[in-house]
């Protein structure tokens, strides 16, 4: 473990006037913290607050946590019943596991498809790279919603895919793909693939090719070069791409709603029902809070593991 040269740092610190030191450092560290506080922590606290209230027929449709009764008395009522319900009712657990499963499988498929794509772009002749990257980014120029709607046209009973397969004679009955889990996977993998390709490309393009040359000179076979050098060095890209897919897909609502069938149970859809159909904002907020905890714990654990691994390296 490296040791920070504290003495030199202390000397420098004493030499600087206290106020300007606080200003400079505080400002630089403060900006991201302020950003995080304003756009993440504060909204989350609102959600947390609503999750502890009770639904009411009012505007907004939940009770106040703090009530001034008069004579300087303040009553605070917290309702933890929603969290108990989420734990007790198999419906919500089922939805959470369902979402995580769909997100995990989609992430894996995205990585399996995205890695060769990113690898091919990174190893392509340099004048080809920009056009190829553009092709990856190009779909973003069309609205995400319209692209998902396009899949309905492709996958439905008398849609493009079925008509093509019928025409080629490969099938004699239209395949039922739309409104099945398969359609959800197709939609998700299609929509999120660029989020894997771009970070993977960024790591693969920075890879030091002389390492591979050295390995080849020492008699290492290509597939072993890949497994021992390229893959481990591109791991940060794999993790970044995986996170960019996994986290939003767990809460995905639009794709399962449009392409999925009635049995596609995902947490996003359940939140919609609680929020809109049931007007139960507190329960919807508890679901959101639980989802955040479920997503943040592995993320923090991963960061912790990464930091440890970094420290252990000589």
């Amino acid at each position, binding site marked *: 473990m490296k040791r920070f040269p504290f003495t030199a740092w202390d000397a420098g610190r004493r030499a600087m006037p206290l106020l300007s030191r606080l200003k400079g450092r505080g400002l630089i560290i403060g900006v991201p913290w302020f950003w995080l506080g304003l756009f993440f922590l504060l909204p989350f606290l609102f959600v947390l607050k609503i999750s502890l209230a009770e*639904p009411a*027929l*009012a*505007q*907004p*449709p939940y009770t106040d946590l703090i009530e001034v009764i008069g004579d300087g008395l303040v009553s605070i009522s917290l309702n933890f019943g929603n969290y108990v319900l989420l734990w007790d*009712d*198999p*419906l919500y657990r*089922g939805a959470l596991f369902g979402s995580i499963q769909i997100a995990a499988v989609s992430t894996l498929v995205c990585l399996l498809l995205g890695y060769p794509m990113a690898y091919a772009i990174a190893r392509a002749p340099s004048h080809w790279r920009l056009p190829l990257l553009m092709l990856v980014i190009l779909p973003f120029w069309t609205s995400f919603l319209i692209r998902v709607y396009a899949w309905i046209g492709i996958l*439905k*009973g*008398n849609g493009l895919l079925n008509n093509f397969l019928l025409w080629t004679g490969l099938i004699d009955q239209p395949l039922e793909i739309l*409104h099945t889990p398969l359609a959800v996977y197709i939609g998700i993998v299609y929509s999120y693939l660029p989020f894997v390709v771009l970070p993977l490309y960024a790591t693969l393009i920075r890879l030091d090719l002389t390492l591979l040359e050295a390995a080849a000179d020492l008699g290492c076979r290509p597939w072993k070069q890949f497994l021992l050098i390229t893959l481990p060095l591109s791991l940060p890209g794999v993790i970044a791409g995986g996170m960019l897919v996994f986290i939003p897909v767990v809460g995905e609502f639009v794709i399962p709603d449009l392409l999925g*069938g*009635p*049995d*596609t*149970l995902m947490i996003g859809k*359940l939140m919609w*029902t609680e*929020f*809109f*159909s*049931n*007007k*139960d904002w507190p329960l919807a907020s508890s679901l959101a809070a639980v989802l955040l905890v479920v997503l943040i714990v592995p993320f923090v654990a991963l960061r912790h593991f990464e930091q440890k691994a970094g420290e252990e390296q000589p």
Partner: protein
Amino acid sequence: MKTLYPRIKTLALALSLTAAAQASAQELHVYNWSDYIAEDTVANFEQQTGIDVVYDVYDSNEVAEAKLLAGQSGYDLVFPTARPFADRHIQAGLYQKLDKSKLDRWDNLDPVILESLTDIDPGNQYLVPYMWGTTGIGYNVDKVKAILGDDMPLDTWRLVFDPEIVAKLSECGVALMDDATEVFVAARAYLGKPVDDFSRDAVAEAADVVSAVRPHIRYFHSSQYINDLANGDICVAHGYSGDVLQARDRADEADNGVSVAYAVPSEGAVVWTDVMVIPADAPNPEAAHQFINYLLDPAVIAPITDYVAYANANAAAEALIDPEIRADAGIYPPAETREKLLVLKTPSEREIRDMNRAWTRVKTGQ
């Protein structure tokens, strides 16, 4: 700098001028169901009054309700369904009282429909009835007859709830609405049980009916069936009368050999009324009153009924409606059908949550 300065000044002047112009021209924010007015309704109103109409649409009561409940929706006029939505909203204090001195065409409204709303809105202080319709069954005439034979009566909930029949029809596609109350009430009517019972046991009975046919249901959706019926992608749909009739008209226009029909099931079907309301925090209630009064004009509302295939609540407009529409039993049901129509009572909040959670379980097969 010198050359830039006058330019900024002109720009500022121009900006303040547009701001002034915007302040003088009135704006009216209307939030209505999609496909629920005629094509020229808004344009004619703008021409007559000089008020700019900002017209937004929704496709479910729930979405409109969420905006109203959150507050400061910015809308001046909204069109929710009377029961259970507007009923709840009056209780929650979301609306402002109508100023009837500004509605000189109020007397055009059908007194029977006004009377039918007094249990949720005593004295008709908040709600102006707009259109009404029923929730029944739309079907592809040729395909269903080919499968079930010519003798089978088609005005029955068995088409969507009898497992044997739905299994036969599933090859050409059966769709149910994605709406807990509508489906459970229809299922109770199919069982011949009282439809106003929202107790847990009653909901469980209805849920069992839906669970039994679920494997044969192609999807649960509250508007998708319009297109799919018209294209022949599905052959039976549980849906709103006017939506099914719009599907029929679209199929006729496309001349694609699909003929769609609508039936009010003989076991009974829900009749509903959509109403116009002014939110309590509406920025421009004055213009909202003008728009309501405009829609109370028989010459305005009759072409809307012709266009959207829903019956309006304007008694004075009856003579102006296209005779073909007026004679359509799906839009203006004959007396013997009207007797079978059911007016829903509003379930309690607890009952609604139980129903919706039971609905999620049924849909997902949990």
